[in-house]
């Protein structure tokens, strides 16, 4: 499985298990830090969100993801792998739309690099959402 991609629909528990398994080969990776972003059933103006529809400038998003990974790897020398997956299309409330996983030798770089990746994804990925009620 490729480390990073845009996928159609939610990031299912099965896909998450597969992504996590692909980080399992490396017995030098003592630390795995994961962030999962999920669609919240927020209420705005008395209406409850049932789903979010994500769209992206896909060609640019793919390039940005690669640059984020390169930046994170060069900033955190103990990092051994970085995975980024983002949903496109409709994702129901409670389902996952973002998956980030960083493996490293020790805990410090895994946790910090995961957070840093998350912030860069938020800031740099050309992705837009539309709440569905």
């Amino acid at each position, binding site marked *: 499985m490729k480390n990073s991609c845009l996928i159609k629909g939610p990031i299912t528990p099965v896909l998450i298990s597969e992504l996590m398994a692909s980080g399992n080969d490396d017995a030098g990776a003592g630390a795995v830090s994961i962030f999962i*972003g999920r669609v919240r059933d927020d209420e705005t103006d008395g209406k409850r969100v049932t789903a979010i529809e*994500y*769209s*992206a*400038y896909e*060609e*640019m998003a793919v*390039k940005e993801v690669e640059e984020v990974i390169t930046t994170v790897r060069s900033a955190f020398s103990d990092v051994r792998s970085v995975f980024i997956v*983002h949903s496109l299309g409709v994702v129901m409330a409670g389902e996952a*739309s*973002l998956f980030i996983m960083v493996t490293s030798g020790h805990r410090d770089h895994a946790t910090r690099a995961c957070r840093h990746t*998350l912030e860069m*994804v*938020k*800031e*740099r*990925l*050309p*992705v*837009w*959402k539309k709440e569905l009620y």
Partner: protein
Amino acid sequence: MKAEVRVLYFGAAQEATGKSEETIMAADTASLRNQLISRYPALKQIPFRMALNRTLLKGDSGLQKSDTIAIMPPFQGG
């Protein structure tokens, strides 16, 4: 000199213009921005940035034939 460029609209800019892409003649990004806002007044409400050929623009830039400009409202990924 004006060039014919491909303009892509995303997110709220798509709703403001009613389309996802078109081709427009413009000499540079500053004049393109002005043209778009006068053509689609609803765009004025949207603090959009532009990407030139998949790279976010920091300032203004000249335009050449077959350049692709993306009109990008604030990102909402994650």
